[in-house]
């Protein structure tokens, strides 16, 4: 049965139709929550909240975005809410113009990250990456998770985050730059990194 029909049935109060939608999305929503929140317990709560909230507001789903985008949006909000409840939610000022105190943003990104294709990643590295994501400000976390874990397009991300396309582009860049710096700062990666001397091609 196609999704629109399931959504329509669920809206009319057919619980099994809603359960079919849950079955379809629970993995993605849970995984997203897990990477946003960094632990299984909060991830489960946020995912539960997401589906409960979706169920109760199904009648307000107007279909001007796809069901999955709509659901991701609820999930994103549930995660941000969870972070806030955990007391880590400070107000972050978003998307301030590129620039630091000294006037310009560091343009140079670190070159000493391991190449995931070269080295078989051990669990230690994975954990470090997950921790580094969890250490980003929530909005950076959200955009990285939506793009690189959930693999949404920029357009879908714009809808989920309710921002312009240009903002998706710049925020994603900032989030990645921040992540690459915090990864490079980890001791773990120091010795594995590919130094600038090992560049391959030369133009």
């Amino acid at each position: 049965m196609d999704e629109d029909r399931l959504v329509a049935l669920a809206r009319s109060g057919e619980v099994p139709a809603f359960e079919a939608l849950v079955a379809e999305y629970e993995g993605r929503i849970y995984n997203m929550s897990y990477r946003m929140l960094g632990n299984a317990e909060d991830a489960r709560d946020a995912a539960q909240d997401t589906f409960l909230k979706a169920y109760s507001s199904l009648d307000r789903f107007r279909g001007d975005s796809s069901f999955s985008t709509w659901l991701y949006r609820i999930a994103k909000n549930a995660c941000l809410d969870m972070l806030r409840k955990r007391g880590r939610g400070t107000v972050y000022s978003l998307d301030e113009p590129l620039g630091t105190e000294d006037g310009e943003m560091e343009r140079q990104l670190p070159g000493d990250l391991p190449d995931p294709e070269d080295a078989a990643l051990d669990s230690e590295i994975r954990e470090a990456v997950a921790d580094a994501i969890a250490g980003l400000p929530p909005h950076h976390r959200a955009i990285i998770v939506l793009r690189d874990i959930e693999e949404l397009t920029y357009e879908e991300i714009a809808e989920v985050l309710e921002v312009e396309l240009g903002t998706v582009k710049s925020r994603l860049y900032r989030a990645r730059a921040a992540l690459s710096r915090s990864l490079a700062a980890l001791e773990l990666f120091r010795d594995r990194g590919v130094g600038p001397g090992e560049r391959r091609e030369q133009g």
Partner: protein
Amino acid sequence: MSERCGFQSEDLSAYLDGELSEAEVQVVEAHLSDCECCRRSLEALRRTRALVLSLPSTSPPPEFREDLREALRAAGAPKHSRGVRSRGGGWHRGLALVAASILVVLLPMAALVSTMMVPTEDQFPLLAADPPPGEMGIMETAPEISTEEAADPPRDVEEIVASETYIIRVDDVEIATPQARSALLDGGGEVLGLTRTYDAAGYLNKAVLVGDLPRDAILEMGERAQQIGILVERRREETSYGDPGTRTEVILSLEKMEHVVPPADGDELVRAEALRRPGALGERIRRSFSGSWTRFGAGVATALVWIAGHLPHLAFAVGAIILVFAVSRRGTRSAPPKK
């Protein structure tokens, strides 16, 4: 070594994602071919992205769906309707009929009354009452939505997903206020509240408009804000997870160019008006005004609005209690003691 080439680094990240147009791709590739710095940045971005991609996918615990089903049930997901089996006669049946008719007749009436009772602009002198000196200078800073409230959003109010605050310096607050109002209206928004702050000499030196916009319309709000005065700050705050698809709260804080700092003893007047929109009204007033007097006024208004908004429910509750009473009486009657 790190020479700044001035290239848009965002484009490198978008290039990686295949989110650039063909023309843009050509520009990026041409630049990459002779910029070592950008090649390195691209490689760092590529590795960062690949590290994230390499994270294993996690799955919900096995009991997830059953827990959810429970939670849905607890939250009142519709099940097969039970229906009240009322076959017996007697007075309790009559009472049930009375209850039913109360529900049928009173509900529409209550609804009607509640729409009539929605406060209008004229009724707001209540809130506009001048606060006594003492608790003043409170409005010196823009009203902010505290995170505690945001953490536990009221469920019966149309929920606001995000809040945007614009601090705008203006030459004349009086002139700027209607401009700000129309900036909201032009975007398809509504104005829900207005707070004016006067300095010791009685001059208006600040106005704070609270309103909302459809979430798409927020994109142009920055531009509209710049037409009112000098936009000195724009803040966005996610406030709650609400109905995804609703509106963004907008707070426009208009401040006189040379902002007069109120004297320490606070001889400042704060006037508040609140406009239309029943459901959100009480809540908004409560959230956006501080100061004990305005808070008291807002409390009263909130209570009134709540009562007005819930008349149908109250009527329903009365009807339901009578109905339950009737049914339970029938239950005790129909099981006569065997003696």
